[in-house]
C-alpha cells in the first residue's frame, strides 16, 4: 500500500487554530462523554418508569409502556436524530421553533434528548425483564404483608430487579456511548466527527481513525471496570 504514515501528526497544529490535532480529538472525546452521560440520565429515568408501567396490573399502563417501547425501538436512531433536529422545530409554533433553532449548542441538546429517549426504550425492556424474572411469590408476599403496589415495587421488586439487570445495563450503557457518534450527522463535534475532520484537513486517515478507535476502547474499558465493581458491590448475597 502506498501510504505515508505519520504518527507525529497528532502534535501538529490543526488548521482550526485552537491547538493540535490531539487537542481536537480530546475535545471530541469530551463531547462524547458528556453527551453519553446526560443521555444516560434521561434514559435511566424514563426507561425505569416505562419498564415498570409494562409490568403493572393496569391494562392502560401496560399499553402506554408498550407504545413507548415499540415507537422508539422500531425507528432507526439516525432517523430519530433527523426528526428531532429538522422536523420538530418546524411543527412547533413558530416562535418556539425559532428559539430552538437559535439555541447555542443546539446539536448537543438535540443529541442528548434523542439518544436519551431512544436508549430509554431499551432500558425499559431490561427493567421489565428484570421484574418479570423475579419469582411470582415476591409480589404476592408484598401484597400479603399489606403493602400497596407502589410500596411493593419500591421495597421488594425494584431493589432485586436492578441487581439482576446490572450486567445487561452495562451493555446498554456501552451502546449508548457508541451511539453518540450518530449525532455527528446533526453537527455535534464528538469523537468520530473530530476524527473525520482531522482526516479531512491532514489526509492522515488511518492515524485519525486509529486514535479514535483506541480512545473508544479505553473509555469503554473504564466503563466495564467500574460496572464490574458495582456488580460485586451490589450482588444479592447468597445467589
Amino acid at each position, binding site marked *: 500500500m*502506498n501510504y505515508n504514515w505519520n504518527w507525529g501528526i497528532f502534535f501538529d497544529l490543526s488548521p482550526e487554530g485552537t491547538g493540535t490535532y490531539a487537542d481536537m480529538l480530546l475535545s471530541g472525546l469530551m463531547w462524547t462523554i458528556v453527551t453519553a452521560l446526560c443521555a444516560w440520565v434521561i434514559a435511566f429515568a424514563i426507561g425505569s418508569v416505562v419498564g415498570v408501567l409494562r409490568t403493572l396490573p393496569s391494562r392502560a399502563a401496560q399499553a402506554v409502556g408498550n407504545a413507548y417501547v415499540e415507537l422508539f425501538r422500531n425507528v432507526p436512531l439516525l432517523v430519530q436524530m433527523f426528526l428531532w433536529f429538522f422536523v420538530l422545530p418546524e411543527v412547533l409554533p413558530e416562535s418556539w421553533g425559532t428559539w430552538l433553532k437559535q439555541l447555542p449548542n443546539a446539536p448537543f441538546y438535540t443529541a442528548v434528548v434523542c439518544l436519551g429517549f431512544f436508549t430509554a426504550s431499551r432500558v425499559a425492556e431490561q427493567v421489565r425483564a428484570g421484574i418479570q424474572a423475579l419469582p411470582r411469590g415476591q409480589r404476592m408476599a408484598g401484597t400479603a404483608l399489606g403493602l400497596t403496589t407502589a410500596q411493593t415495587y419500591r421495597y421488594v421488586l425494584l431493589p432485586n430487579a436492578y441487581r439482576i439487570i446490572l450486567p445487561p445495563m452495562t451493555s446498554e450503557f456501552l451502546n449508548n456511548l457508541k451511539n453518540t457518534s450518530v449525532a455527528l450527522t446533526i453537527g455535534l463535534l464528538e469523537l468520530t466527527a473530530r476524527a473525520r475532520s482531522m482526516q479531512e484537513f491532514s489526509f492522515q486517515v488511518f492515524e485519525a481513525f486509529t486514535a479514535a478507535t483506541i480512545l473508544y476502547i479505553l473509555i469503554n474499558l473504564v466503563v466495564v471496570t467500574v460496572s464490574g465493581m458495582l456488580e460485586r458491590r451490589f450482588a444479592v448475597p447468597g445467589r
Partner: protein
Amino acid sequence: MRLKCLLPVVIAGLAVAPASAQELTGTLKKIKETGQITLGYRDSSVPFSYLDGSQKPVGYAMDICHKIVDAVKADLKLDKLETRLNPVTSATRIPLIANGTVDLECGSTTNNADRQKQVGFTNTHFLTATRFVAKKASNVSKFEDLKGKTVVSTSGTTNIRQINEYNTEKKLGITILPAKDHAEAFLMVETGRAVAFVMDDVLLASLAAGSKDPGAYMISADALSKPEPYGIMLRKDDAPFKKVVDAATAAFYKSPEGKATYDKWFTKPIPPRDINLNLPMSEPLQKAFAQPSDSPDPAMY
C-alpha cells in the same frame, strides 16, 4: 495458447523499445497488466463529479478524467482499456487511492501542501476562493459592507475560520453563525436570518443557481482568500504515471477543448435539473490553463 500468440508481439516490442517496456512500474504497469483503469467519482460534487438523472457519474472532472484515460491508453499502446468507476467519499478517497482500488480521483479535492505529503495531484482544473452570497436587495457587495451584520458559514470549514480572523482583525463586529451544512447556511440567507453566507465561491454558485429565485442573489466580487486550487488526485511517488497524466491534462487545458469543457459545465444548463451556474472562467484560472501547474501554493495563481 494466448501467451504463445502474444509472444512474437512482446518480443517485437522488446526489440523496438527495450527500455520503455522494462521501465513500466506502479500504476502504468498495473493498468497494462489488467487492462483496467479505475476512476473514483463523488456522488454530489456539482458540477465536478456527481450522479445525473440516470445515476451515471458525470461532470467537469469526469470529462477531464476520460481525457486522461484516452491518453494513458495511447501511451501504453493498448487496443482496449476498460474504465471502471468507483464511488468515493471524502473519508474513503485517501485509503482507496493508497491501496490501489482507485487510480484517479475525479472530484473537487483541494490541492494543498499538507495533502501533498500523502497523495499526488495533477494540474489544477479549478480555482476557488472564499466569497459570500447575499440577496441583491440587501445591498452588500464587499466584505467591508458586512460590518455589524449577521453572516453565516458552515462549521468545521476553513471558510468560517477565515471570516472569524477577518472580523477580529478589522474589528467589524460581524455576528458569525455556524451552520451544520451548506444547505442550512443558504436557507438562513434565504429566510433572512443572516445577510450573507461565506463559503467557496463555486459552492455558492451552485446553491444560488439551484434556489427558487436564482436572479435574487449575487456573489461578492472580492474574495477573502487567495484562490485555492482543485486537482485530480493520484498516488504519490508514481512519477511515470504522473508524467502521462500531467502531459494529458496540460495538452487538454491548453487546447480550445479545455475551455469548451469548462464552459459546458459552468456557463450552460447542466443535468439533471438544467440549472446554470453562470460562472465564467476567472482570470487566474485562464492563466492556470495557459500555463498548467500542480502547485499547491495559492500565491502561484
